């Protein structure tokens, strides 16, 4: 008799790329279990605040619970401080929320993207228990291992250990970043069985939030 597992991996990949004045957050829309597809049309992206978007892959039950939890905490912050949470503030909150369940973790692999208080793009990448870092770009999920080397090659993120500290922001323009994201997802879809169907791309910049959908391979 197999032991009951509280977790399940519903697959999928999330990517975020930060630029000067914009941030691109993208995730595929396929939900799987084992070798089956549950749905081709499920969004992994959640808007938590004005300029703050969370993309999560992993166990969909925990993703939903985490998103609801964060949205409720954001509302409490709004009531207390009379303003919406900034992206760096939400980044810390997400880390704390994940570590709170250190001994029964949220099975979620998160990427938080948005604009910081100066209007520059920021991406925060997490592990399942809340360890996080601000970077210029990140990929999480089943296709991450396929995507990250390509992003490294294109975006040349400076090592955070060198001095003087260099900006973790990419040299690309907004449309170049969107094209890059489309390309990496097309590549990941070829080899990762859990990634495909549709790609949801959300771009945040000073004029607001813009969403588009691209078809991916359905096999």
């Amino acid at each position: 008799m197999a032991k009951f597992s509280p977790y399940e991996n519903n697959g999928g990949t999330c990517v975020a790329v930060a630029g000067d004045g914009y941030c691109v957050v993208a995730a595929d829309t396929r939900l799987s279990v084992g070798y089956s597809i549950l749905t081709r049309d499920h969004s992994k992206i959640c808007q938590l605040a004005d300029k703050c978007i969370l993309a999560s892959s992993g166990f969909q039950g925990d993703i939903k619970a985490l998103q609801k939890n964060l949205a409720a905490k954001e509302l409490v912050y709004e009531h207390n401080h009379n303003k919406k949470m900034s992206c760096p503030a939400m980044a810390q909150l997400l880390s704390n929320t994940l570590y709170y369940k250190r001994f029964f973790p949220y099975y979620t692999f998160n990427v938080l993207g948005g604009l910081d208080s100066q209007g520059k793009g920021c991406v925060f990448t997490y592990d399942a228990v809340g360890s996080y870092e601000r970077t210029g770009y990140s990929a999480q999920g089943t296709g991450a291992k396929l995507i990250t080397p390509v992003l490294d090659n294109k975006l040349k993120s400076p090592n955070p250990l060198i001095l003087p500290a260099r900006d973790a922001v990419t040299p690309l323009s907004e449309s170049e970043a969107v094209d890059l994201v489309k390309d990496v997802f097309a590549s990941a879809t070829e080899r990762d069985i859990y990634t495909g169907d549709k790609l949801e791309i959300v771009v945040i910049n000073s004029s607001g939030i813009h969403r588009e959908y691209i078809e991916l391979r359905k096999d």
Partner: protein
Amino acid sequence: MFRNQYDTDVTTWSPQGRLFQVEYAMEAVKQGSACVGLRSRTHAVLAAANKAASELSSHQRKVFRVAEHAGVALAGLTADGRVLSRFLRSECINHSFVYESPLPVSRLALRLADKAQVCTQRSWKRPYGVGLLVAGLDETGAHLYYNCPSGNYFEYQAFAIGSRSQAAKTFLERRFEKYNDYTPEQLIKDALSAIKETLQGEKLTSSNCTVAIVGRKDDGTMEPFETIDAKRIQEIIDSMEAAEEAPTEPSAMQQEEEGTDAAAPMDI
């Protein structure tokens, strides 16, 4: 009210069947500065007269957003009101978390009333010394409730609480029957006129009143609970005063449905 031997604690009845501590708590509401609320089928408006402790201090906040679809205006011990607002906010967030839909206004008023009632039946507690006008929008339309320290609550078309609220109530009593069909702008003007009644001669400006509105527009989209900014309030006040000063024709007076005709001046 005079001191007597049955008013020491809230768990003592008087021989006439009264709980004096609860009634004293309702007196505290009457000492607070005035608030009015009114509603149509689709919109609810709350207005409060701001009172500052001294010229040097800021005004007390009397209108609080509780959720996107609801808010409260309070009169009485504002510290108690602040704590109750926090409770209401938390109830709304918890309800949306579980049911993914906004807490209906009647249930919100009920939760508040139940919380108030608890304090009238525990010897180690005291009743909350604040009356709240709860305004909100839900599936069944716009609603306005008054919650008092006794734990009672009623739904109203229009109501006023706090000091000199009788003047506002008299004003509202004359006009409330038409409110269901009022536009939001008319509601706001009447709310401001009602507050003006409670100021007893003092000039109404955007710095001594706060107005908030929540409702559903004609196209079905929601106008979330929001305090109207001071600049817009001043514009509305100015337009109300301009309409008062303009000479009114006899036929216009009779068919007047706008909230711009001047209320009878109070000489007291």
